[in-house]
């Protein structure tokens, strides 16, 4: 019986306060744009901040006020921007969908080691120790800072290199910002080919550092008929505005560091 007294007492206090709050919410209610609630429902609700607003609710308010475009959410993509465009009564212009790609395949056998790193599992800290344990100072350190910031469980570290699952990736860009090596890039989702090296070391040096490093041989540049792949700063980079997915560079690369999406080693 004794337990009933505190339960009743506390319950009564709660009830009285609850009624008071309910009354107050009626009296003090603020007329809010009802579109804000609808837009918020259409957004993914991950509060990842990829839109540069402080969360989905804040973005919803900004869209309703017309301060942000209907396609401001990179995570929701075409699906949510279509719904939001419907709510706002404007034409939908879906933003190009991107996907994050780790521009390095320097797995433990391929990339040479500078020293044996045994510190914290943190890329930023490792990077301060002479640029990390890998001989190539541009490569993925594989300590998983990107994995920890990803809210969509889309990145894994496999064999000391981070790999993005394109199915789960929403191109929110958190991993891009978290990577101290800036080795994660956003590329258009529908494109097939990616050059998986951003090392600026010269070809001759690169050969000693990593067996899957770009040696800037320019064979891809010569193979491309659309002027879409260029070697700059000693690594090849694809201009996706010009790329037609013809695959000539992929065939030409002697180091096999240009990857095609469907291939199993792409992951």
């Amino acid at each position, binding site marked *: 019986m004794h337990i009933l007294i*505190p339960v009743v007492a506390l319950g009564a*206090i709660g009830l009285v306060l609850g009624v008071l709050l309910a009354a107050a919410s009626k009296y003090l209610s603020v007329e809010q744009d009802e579109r804000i609630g609808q837009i918020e429902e259409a957004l993914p609700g991950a509060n990842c901040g990829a839109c540069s607003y402080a969360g989905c609710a804040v973005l919803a308010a900004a869209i309703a006020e017309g301060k942000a475009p209907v396609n401001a959410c990179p995570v929701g993509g075409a699906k949510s921007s279509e719904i939001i465009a419907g709510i706002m009564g404007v034409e939908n212009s879906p933003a190009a969908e991107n996907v994050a790609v780790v521009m390095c395949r320097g797995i433990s056998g391929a990339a040479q080691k500078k020293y044996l790193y045994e510190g914290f599992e943190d890329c930023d800290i490792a990077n301060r120790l002479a640029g990390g344990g890998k001989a190539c100072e541009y490569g993925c350190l594989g300590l998983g800072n990107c994995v920890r910031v990803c809210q969509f469980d889309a990145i894994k570290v496999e064999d000391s290199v981070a790999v993005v699952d394109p199915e789960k990736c929403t191109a929110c860009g958190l991993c891009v910002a978290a990577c101290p090596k800036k080795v994660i890039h956003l590329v258009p989702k529908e494109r097939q080919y990616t050059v998986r090296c951003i090392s600026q070391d010269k070809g001759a040096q690169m050969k000693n550092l990593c067996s899957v490093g770009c040696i800037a041989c320019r064979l891809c540049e010569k193979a491309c008929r659309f002027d879409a792949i260029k070697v700059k700063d000693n690594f090849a980079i694809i201009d996706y505005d010009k790329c037609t997915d013809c695959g000539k560079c992929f065939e030409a690369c002697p180091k096999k560091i240009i990857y095609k999406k469907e291939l199993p080693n792409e992951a």
Partner: protein
Amino acid sequence: MLRDILVIAISAIFIENFVLVKFLGICPFLGVSKKIQTAMGMGMAVTFVMAMASALTWCINHFILQPCGLDYLQTIAFILVIAALVQLVEMFLQKMLPGLYNALGIYLPLITTNCAVLGVALLNIQNEFNLIKSIVYGASAALGFTLAIVLFAGVREHLEFSEIPEALKGFPIALITAGLISIAFLGFSGLQI
């Protein structure tokens, strides 16, 4: 009586300043002290909540908890009251002062978890204050909080324009400043009243 009240007020504001001497309510102290205006707003909101909470919790303790022998429920009952009060203040500000509401942002609902508010409610009971003394203690403790946060915001506004070593920019220098102000407030402990 009047003398007692004055003693309580002065000691709560200066000698036992909640933020700088008792180290309660540090979260909003650091979070909302970038501008004097928002710091002032936060101080006022906390003052209202703390004065109201002091009165309400005293009543609840005196008329419900103590007669029923439920003293052990103090903490949870007080949290309930404070949470409801903060909700009320939030709704009031959203309606009446939307500018201040937006400026305070997330820190407004966080008053709920501001330990200064719960602290004052529990200290009232501990010090065996009566209703009037409780309210005075709550209000003046909150005024002490306001004083501290406004002083701190003033210093931080000046910090924006000073040359600070790279490693100390942002929060580190703010924490050092807070420590220095706290040491300065220790000087009040020599006050004899």
